[in-house]
């Protein structure tokens, strides 16, 4: 499987409601040890949003800190996206990810996580 097979895939909640597309994948370096690299990169979750470029410029998830005007604008866009922990994925199809929770139980990603 490739990362590009996941990005932009449509995400549906437990009731079949479309909550957006997969924008980015959260990796945590606590996976099985890899010789030469250290602890492996485990997929911990993902952000589902509209899939537009404005939502993945790094204002919320990355380190971009300003300018104020752009930050206000794009943070609002990025905050529309919701973070889905990987254990909430019920099943994956070729062009769809189905969750085991409802959209209401999800919240935007907080940068401290």
């Amino acid at each position: 499987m490739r990362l590009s097979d996941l990005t932009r895939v449509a995400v549906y909640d437990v009731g079949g409601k479309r909550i957006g597309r997969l924008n980015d994948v959260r990796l945590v370096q606590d996976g099985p040890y890899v010789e030469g690299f250290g602890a492996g990169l485990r997929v911990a979750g993902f952000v589902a949003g509209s899939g537009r470029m404005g939502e993945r410029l790094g204002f919320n998830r990355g380190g971009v800190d300003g300018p104020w005007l752009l930050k206000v604008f794009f943070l609002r866009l990025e905050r529309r996206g919701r973070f889905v922990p990987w254990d909430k994925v019920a099943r994956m199809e070729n062009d769809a990810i189905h969750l085991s929770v409802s959209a209401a139980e999800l919240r935007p990603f907080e940068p401290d996580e």
Partner: protein
Amino acid sequence: MKKILSITLGILTAIGGFVDIGDLVANAATGARFKMALAGVVLIGVLGIIVYAEMSGRVAAITGRPVFDLVRERLGPNAGGANLIASFIINLLTLCAELGGVALALSMIASVNYILLIPVAAFLVWIVIWKMPFERMEEMFGLLGLMLITFLVALFHLHPPWHELLHSASHPAIPKNETPFTFAYYAIALFGAAMTPYEVFFFSSGAVEEKWTVDDLNLNRANVYIGFPLGGLLSLSIMALTTVVFAPRMISVDTLPQVALPVALSVGKVGLGLLIIGIFAATFGAALETAMSSGYCVAQYFGWQWGKFVKPREAARFHVVMLAAIVATTLFALTGVDPVKVTEYSIVLSAAALPLTYFPILLISNDRHYMGDHVNGRVLNFLASIYMVIIAVVAVVTIPLMIITKAGA
């Protein structure tokens, strides 16, 4: 002397951007048509390129990542690829025009039809890229380009009515035989010339070529704060010269040799000779800048090895791209296209592509993961945001204006 040599990157970048063939003529034409009414646009453009070139140089010094690398990284392969195609075409158009410009400058002395000199110019450009170390190259053409200061000397020597020039600049008015559309079109051409994307491609890649580090941030500032205002000053003195000499005679400017006429009138043969050397260096510098930018853009998008800091055989694709660009544009230039018209189009087209280049620079220079403590300050961000808005507006209105005014006719 060593200090002067270390800011030649900024000087060459600015001269190649502000007073290359298209801008020499565009500045002269606006002076003759609108007097100094558009001088303010040049100042706005100078400040804009200072703001963004400083950021791109700082990012390059701290992270080693030049502009097109950032474009691909932050915009992804699709939007980044669209920018690549647009920038590459703009680079080629400009390169084609500059080769014509180099040939024209040579033919002003050599009495040979300039078309015959185009292959010579192209070969010289290629051999410099192939053989000459980056620092030698920028020193040689940056310093020779300073001969363009003759424009300023010629202006002073004419004892122009400074008050009128200043008044015309500070109270911009559209002449009654011109429409607001043509006025806006020329404003965009001047703004686009000041902020042509190849300047930041070249400047930031040059910073990597010279192996700038975090210790070179002052050098970066010196390059930017001296180079670009100098380019703007030259641009304004051309405008003032034609305001004084051509506007009262109702002469409109459309060829490169015409631009030198006020200088010959004012300071004579010696001045004319120095000026032609300056024009040669500026167009040659711009040809180097655009030819190398075409290599930088493609190589950085795909992550290939690039740069003159390695042997050509270690950056084979980079050199092949540049060689192909030079060959293709030479053939195009040999068809006899008017170099001045070609750059006018390419400047205006590049105005439409500006946001895709400058936006990633603004993002990364604010990214703490990249820049640590060297992220933009508040004042800089305030200015940069204003320019982002200007750039976005310019990008939207450019092509419609070009169609409405039939390219400023």
